[in-house]
């Protein structure tokens, strides 16, 4: 078995606060004031002390881990621990500040359901659009189209209706159905199961587990729902304040997390 994801010394630094004034006009006024030795007209009183103190901070610091092909890793941690930041780097949405990530196979990331859905487009058109955004080719979607519609439990007569007329439940189900049929080797999912009804969530989890087991797909999964993480994943990673505290069997990690939030 080979390594699917290898993360080495990964760090991400964010700049806090407003950088500049967000307005060219105001920035020009600030510059001219500076040139004349006058105080910056756009500095807010309480901002002055904050800037310089904590301008930057590390959302992730020196993260190292490997995920084997076919492994399902659950990433857990408190709010602000850096889980989403980690997934965003792995998805190439934002660049790391330091370190390297290497991956084998195509990556599909699901940081939100229905990304890129266009309300004016029909269900059918959105399946193609959303699928393409997530990295599927037209041929892939053609092949899976009927299955996607069936999985979404949307009555076939609605598939050619613009999605702006869908109920929110239908919308979410359709979006999930596309995601469930992604054929990438690595699937990254962030809190996406927080929406949609419980029964449909179960169905999605089941589907994710099934494809992973059958096709040896690697899954990186973030969820606040520890039950879902235990059900889906074998290994767990515990993040806190941007550091990787623990990487072990999912049950051990979940217990450790319970201790952490229990305090």
């Amino acid at each position, binding site marked *: 078995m080979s390594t699917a994801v290898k993360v080495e010394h990964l760090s991400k630094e964010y700049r806090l606060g407003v950088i500049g004034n*967000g*307005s*060219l*006009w105001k920035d020009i006024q600030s510059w001219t004031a500076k040139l004349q030795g006058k105080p910056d007209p756009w500095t807010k009183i309480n901002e002055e002390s904050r800037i310089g103190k904590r301008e930057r901070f590390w959302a992730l610091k020196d993260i190292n881990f490997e995920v084997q092909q076919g492994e399902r890793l659950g990433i857990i941690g408190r709010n602000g621990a850096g889980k989403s930041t980690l997934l965003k780097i792995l998805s*190439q*949405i934002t660049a790391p500040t330091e370190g390297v990530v*290497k*991956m084998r196979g195509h990556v599909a990331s699901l940081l939100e359901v229905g990304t890129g859905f266009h309300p004016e487009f029909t269900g059918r058109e959105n399946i193609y659009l959303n699928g*393409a955004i997530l990295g599927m080719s037209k041929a892939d979607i053609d092949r899976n189209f009927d299955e996607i519609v069936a999985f979404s439990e949307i009555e076939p007569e609605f598939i050619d209706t613009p999605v702006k007329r869908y109920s929110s439940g239908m919308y979410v189900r359709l979006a999930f159905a596309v995601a469930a049929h992604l054929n990438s080797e690595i699937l990254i999912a962030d809190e996406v199961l927080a929406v949609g009804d419980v029964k449909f969530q179960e169905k999605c989890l089941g589907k994710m587990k099934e494809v992973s087991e059958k096709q040896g797909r690697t899954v990186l999964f973030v969820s606040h729902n520890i039950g879902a993480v235990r059900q889906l994943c074998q290994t767990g990673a515990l993040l806190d304040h941007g550091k990787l505290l623990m990487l072990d069997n999912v049950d051990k990690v979940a217990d450790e997390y319970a201790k952490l939030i229990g305090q």
Partner: protein
Amino acid sequence: MTSDKETWDVVITPKRMWLGLNLKELRQYKDLITLMIRREFVSVYKQTIFGPLWFVFQPLMSTFLYMFVFGNIAQMGTDEIPQALFYFSGTMLWTFFATTLQKCSDTFINNAGLFGKVYFPRLTMPIAYVTNAFFTLLIQFAVMLVFYVYYLANGVQFSLSWWILTTPIYILQLALLGTGFGIMISALTTKYHDLRNLVSFGLSLLMYATPVVYPISSIPVRWKVLFQFNPVAPVIEMFRYSFFGKGSCNLKMWAYSLIVSVVVFLLGLMTFNHNEQTFVDVV
């Protein structure tokens, strides 16, 4: 770094490319590009009551307006080219350039939600915008040909020149200029939101330093400088010269404009590449 073979499909590092056009990756996403073009095209005309007719209606309206204001009231010349053809061709080409520039400059702002959630080559969007503008241009070009034939049938003589064969180059130039300036600005608008207003204002000023509503020949000598630095000006003049045989065919200016087009496009690509992975952190 030793045990298993170092054959990775994706390697993510902090380094960003300055000048790189990952054509292989863009090709992988060609289905997405096609869908985005369609999405753009459809959402433009779904927003107007005219539907797809909008693409023809808009330049026709401008043409009538210019015929009235510049042709009749201001009595400006058109290099003896029939007014309708003169204004229509100018508007059509200018709109292609200006729309591309404006749409591209909003790339990050208009797609912040999408870019923050999913990775695909960011250039997909500018490519969709320029292609979309190109299709619009094609439709309008067909309308221009209808005018053309109408005037021919009514006995107007056009001295077609061999330059007509370089028409694709004119279009390419406008595409490079529009996209290049647009993506260059898009990198800045993520920091300065008020730049958007400046862009539309700048474009409407620039239109009057471009031979859209009057030919270069009618410009007083002391104002010609304005036109000399404008890379869009020679393209429109050359286009008219090719099709109608009138107007200035200044090869030196055209060569200058060609070079500027390529340079602007490359600079745009550099700033765009540099910005595409960090902008998510600041919006």
